[in-house]
């Protein structure tokens, strides 16, 4: 048998070596290990959330957001109260105008009478 023929034979043998392969099985109690992993993942999720929230940067940022929200609410309230008082004064001025107009109309009406 030549060298090439020998190599070809070895290649064929290697390719056919897994022809009658049987399925490999995992170690026993796989389900127990999977369930343990699932529990760890749930635990890890909440632990992760707690660790994330308790980070100083996250705490400071959270406080800043709350402060900013409070300040913006205060400012909005202030500006809306100013707006409402301005509106009120404008309304009162316009009311006065209406009165004056009405007086003028009455005067005119009186004047127009023969």
């Amino acid at each position, binding site marked *: 048998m030549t060298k090439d023929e020998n*190599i070809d034979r*070895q290649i064929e043998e290697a390719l056919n070596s897994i*022809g*009658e392969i049987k399925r490999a099985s995992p*170690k026993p109690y*796989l389900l127990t*290990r*999977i369930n343990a992993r*699932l529990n760890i993942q749930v635990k890890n999720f909440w632990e992760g959330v707690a660790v994330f929230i308790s980070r100083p940067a996250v705490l400071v940022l959270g406080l800043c957001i709350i402060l900013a929200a409070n300040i913006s609410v205060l400012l909005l309230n202030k500006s809306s109260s100013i707006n409402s008082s301005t509106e009120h004064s404008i309304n009162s001025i316009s009311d006065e105008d209406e009165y004056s107009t009405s007086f003028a109309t009455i005067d005119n009406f009186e004047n127009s009478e023969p």
Partner: protein
Amino acid sequence: MELIKQLQQGEPEAFRRVVDLYQDMVYNTVLSIVQNEADAEDITQEVFVQVHQSVKLFKGDSKFSTWLYRITITKSLDSEKKRKRKKRFAFVQNLFGEKEEEQHHPVEFNHPGVLLENKEKADELFKALQQIPNNQRIAFTLSKTEGLNNQEIAAIMNTSFYAVESLLARAKISLKKKLKDYYLQQSAK
């Protein structure tokens, strides 16, 4: 299908039955791809955790086993990528003189399902399998170690029957080339 519906409703008994039914299929596929028993155990667990978490997304368009094979293959290939990345990182660390703590992947791999008289040849074949393109390797592995037909492989790989035929033919050519190089090296020694 009833079992899958129960699984989707979160019944623990259904999950137990699914693990019992499919654990060999998942483990054998993972082991044939990653060629390491410890990694295969770990990835098999990950696959079932993924099944538990995302079974509600399974719409039944394909067979459940097809869906499970897809998860298994994706997880196995992801794990390989991570291992290669770690290896590269360890190499760079070595270059900078930092202490290497990476656990080396064993070079020798013996699939427990191979007949004793074929162990040596199978080891050489598995080594060659690691060196061919992923899609060829997956098609070949599913065909040889799981005994799936081309139609089933096509469904898993989301491709056509003829594409699988072509992949298997190319896989055989690639493997022959790799094995020839290996045996030539061996005979030169």
